[in-house]
């Protein structure tokens, strides 16, 4: 799973492919940074984290701290986990717009807006409340009509691999949280 903002579709495919090649070539237990000048232009680096079947990739430049970026991925995943109650791959597949809400609360116009997952959670919940009002009723009808279809797709989901993310038992940002954290 890569999160990318503002890429042209044509170039995006090739960029995705390049990133994938780079990531696949890396062994387990090596450092999480990759120089990405050849893919994303000068002064860019890529940091990734690997959870079960998912790769989270952030691209950053020299105005960010490497370790802080690594923690930011952790913040993102942690927030996803809180929002979806034990997040799994399928949550991300099906909750396209919610993923966007979460990401938008963390990264805003290329800048890091929020580094605390509780703050992000608060905002996301309120935004969701705001937009919940109508669509619920309609989708209930639709589900009644497409019940058989739904069952089919659930079994498919099982086949496709319904894997929970292997999250660390307690969420901590080892690099960003020191003794002197105000939050």
């Amino acid at each position, binding site marked *: 799973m890569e999160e990318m903002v503002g890429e042209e579709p044509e170039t995006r495919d090739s960029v995705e492919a390049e990133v994938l090649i780079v990531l696949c070539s890396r062994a387990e237990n090596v450092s999480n940074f990759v120089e990405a000048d050849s893919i994303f232009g000068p002064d860019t680096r890529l940091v990734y984290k690997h959870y079960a079947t998912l790769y989270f990739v952030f691209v950053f430049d020299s105005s960010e701290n490497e*370790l802080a970026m690594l923690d930011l991925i952790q913040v993102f995943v942690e927030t996803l986990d809180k929002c979806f109650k034990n997040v799994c791959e399928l949550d991300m*597949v099906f909750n396209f717009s919610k993923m966007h809400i979460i990401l938008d609360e963390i990264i805003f*116009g*290329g800048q890091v807006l929020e580094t605390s997952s509780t703050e992000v959670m608060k905002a996301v919940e309120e935004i969701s409340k705001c937009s919940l009002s109508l669509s619920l009723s309609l989708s209930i009808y*639709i589900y009644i009509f497409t019940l058989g279809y739904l069952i089919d797709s659930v079994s498919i989901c099982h086949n496709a691999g319904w894997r929970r993310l292997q999250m660390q038992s307690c969420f901590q940002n080892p690099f960003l949280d020191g003794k002197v954290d105000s939050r």
Partner: protein
Amino acid sequence: MAGSSIMESFFQRSLEDLIKGLRLQMIGESKFIAKAMEEIRREIRSTDPNTKSIALQKLTYLNSIHGIDMSWAAFHVVEVMSSTRFSHKKIGYLASSQSFHDGTEVILLITNQLRKDLNSTNEFEVGLALHCLSVIATTDLARDLTPEIFTLLSTSKVFVKKKAVAVILRIFSKYPDAVRVSFKRLVENLESSDPHVVSVVVGVFCELATKDPRSYLPLAPEFYRILVDSKNNWVLIKVLKIFSKLALLEPRLAKRVVDPICEHMRRTGAKSLMFECIRTVVTCLTDYESAVKLAVEKIRELLGDDDPNLKYLGLNALSILGPKQLWAVLENKEVVIKSLSDADPNIKLESLHLVMGMVSESNVAEITRVLINYALKSDPEFCNDILGSILSTCSRNVYEIIVDFDWYVSLLGDMSRNPHCRKGEEIENQLIDIGLRVNDVRPELVRVGRDLLIDPALLGNPLLYRILSAAAWVSGEYVVFSKNPFELMEALLQPRTNLLPSSIRAVYTQSAFKVLVFCLHSYLLQKEAIPSSTLDDLAPGVSNLISERECPEGSDLAKCEAPADYEQDEGFNPRVSNRSVEDLAIENGGDIIVTHGQASSSVSLENDAFTHESVVYLLNMIKMALVPVSGSHEVEVQERARNVLGLVELVQQELPGLLVQKEKSFDNEEPKASKIIKLMHAAFSKELGPISVSAQERVLVPDGLMLKENLSDLETIYGDVLLPPPSSISIGSRLFVERNGVSLFMHTKVESEPSTESTSQLAEHRERHGLYYLPAEKNEIGSNDYPPANDPQLPDNLNDGTQDLVKLTEQSLVSKKKPTHAKPRPMVVKLDDGDEVHVSAMKLVKEPNDDLLSDAVRDILLGNEARPTLSRSNPSDKSSGNRRGKGVYLTSEHASESKELGDAEKPGHGSPSSRRSKHHTHGKERHRSPRKNDEGKEENGQKNKEKSSHRHSRRKARRRADEPLNAVAQTTVVPDFLL
């Protein structure tokens, strides 16, 4: 109508249905998407807002995951954005930030919608609008919405304020004049009580300061306060980033921040903050010994960590520090060198850089030797990293660190034999470049070239073709230094050369031509020389010996004087031909085996040097090899081959005549062929030299030649222009004249060379394997003997290698002062112009907007108070003065819209008074803070008087600082007391 819309929404697929449907399609996904797109196209035209928005949501999804075009739906996006329902609006905004860009036409329509939403009471709607702006804001949008953003900067809602601050970055970069309106308010937010807001503001300043640090120097006190007070690691990291930019510009600032930074480094438990402190110290505080020591201590901690990320970053910090404080690297060199064998590619690469950073004139040979051996055992990618960094380090600044070029050239030869070597192009360039620049190395260069050419195995490796091309060129150009031109000719014409691409084959053929001319010329000279030497007994032998010593340079001179004058050449050529005779003699199962060194030169003159048989043999060989090629489809190869054959035929016709010449000794009548040969030889012996990069610029453009006529398209076609290939080296006048020490060196070389051995091997080999499969002299260390890439004993070897390296660097460090080189460094031709020109031409072109932005920021921070004085001198009202000032920054495009600008500006005009009143309150707050006063006390007494109102005094200082600014615009001065 109403009924149909209900039915529509009733049967509409939701996004979730779409995703499920897509996942069901194992194959034929595109068919399913096409069908879904059909539905979407229908639904999106619906009058029901719900149906429309869901259709748009599906489209957005398909666009982001499957790359389906959605630009056609731009107008529908605007419709959904303007919906009153939040859930619809959200879908619309997401779609717009995903699909709109500067060229989208409907973007003109959303200004009012955005304005409405920015003023909305629902903070989430404001958030949506801000988010959209941060992604798609155009110059127009930024200009028109600056007043709204300005208002939002002082909102009480943190959720909105954060985003309003963050969006500023996009606004500033699109519309620099927004700085004049909103910069002060942005600065005020640095003192916000909310940590989240401060974090974002600092982030924005960090981004701004990266582009143009100088403009933000006046804000240093604010950042300093945050550096000392803040407990938020994220904010501290960003502030450190800012200081690492600012401290480089202002040494006094560096002095001020070094202590707090060290304090953070000592105290913090957060690795990210610690690393940022280290990085700040190693980039800009290297003058402070204690700080550097502390940083190195912390780096050592990182290097000892098990986490590869930390280790990598530690090495990274070391390599930043390396160029300035080499001791820090040397102190940790064991770790560094061990890291060469780490499993992590980042760590390996970083330590390689560090190792190469330790290379100096005295230890380059040892370090590269070990590295080259290590490269053999590494994976192909890292192997090439090693080779690449050796090549670039050694060639840096025109081979600055190379003293012994003979060594370096043979190193290049060894590199070529590395099975993973992909640096062919670079090695090719260096081989030729060194040949051109360093006169003394040419004999060794020819020897290396011969070894490469003669090995038929190398011709099977396409990665080496470029190197072989260089080897062929070098052998042809400097054939005078060849020990055995006949052997060289065989190598150049061996059957496997048909594996080469035609461009390189052409180089081979041309080199063969040069060798042929050389051989024939030597043969002729010999014919003429023999009578004289037999007649004049010993005297010419002595003179030959003397002139022999001067030969490499002397011949150059001679050729300049008169190309056909071979009185000098006569003394010159026998030396070479002499040895060839020996070789040949052995090759032909020789009658004479020469064992007595120097004396033989005069003796052997009496024997036939280039025997008639050997020349005939040579000519036949060439004919045999090149006749098939002369029908080649490649013009370059064909033409050159035909040239050679033409000469061969001419000579063969007249060969009897040439023989006859032997008898009638002092006859001036020369056959046609020998005239031609002399002419060709003269032509080929003109020296080629390196060319300055700027040489082309000095060529006058002839009249009537339109160079810049519509050829700009070509640039895009030939995007990456190749480096100047060897063929671009034109014939120049002689560039080198250096005599001292060289002749001696040449001489010893001749004596010590065990040439007979190799050639006897060669003869043996030929008997066994037929004519062409010549063994390379250095076969023992050649490609055959390399350990396989995946050696099972690899770890052992690795350790050996690294251990070796550890010892070696220790050694080399001790002996660093001693001059280890016996020989003086040969002269290297440098063209001192050109390089610099090149560099200046490469200077980065700044974005025009960046300049506008930094000008505006400087105006606000330093020149703000100057404006009243400006308007005083111009007795019109303030706003017109303001506008006039602004006019400077307006591009012609903007000028037409200046009326609108005036409108947009208005809120900005209203603000100064309110801002000022705010400052007063801030000033009072500051009074309560004792630290501020302390800070003030540290400054000199005169300024202490003004501390009653910190802000006021600063403003005065700004006014003061403004004066030098106007005089010398570039030297922004930070007022003393701010530090």
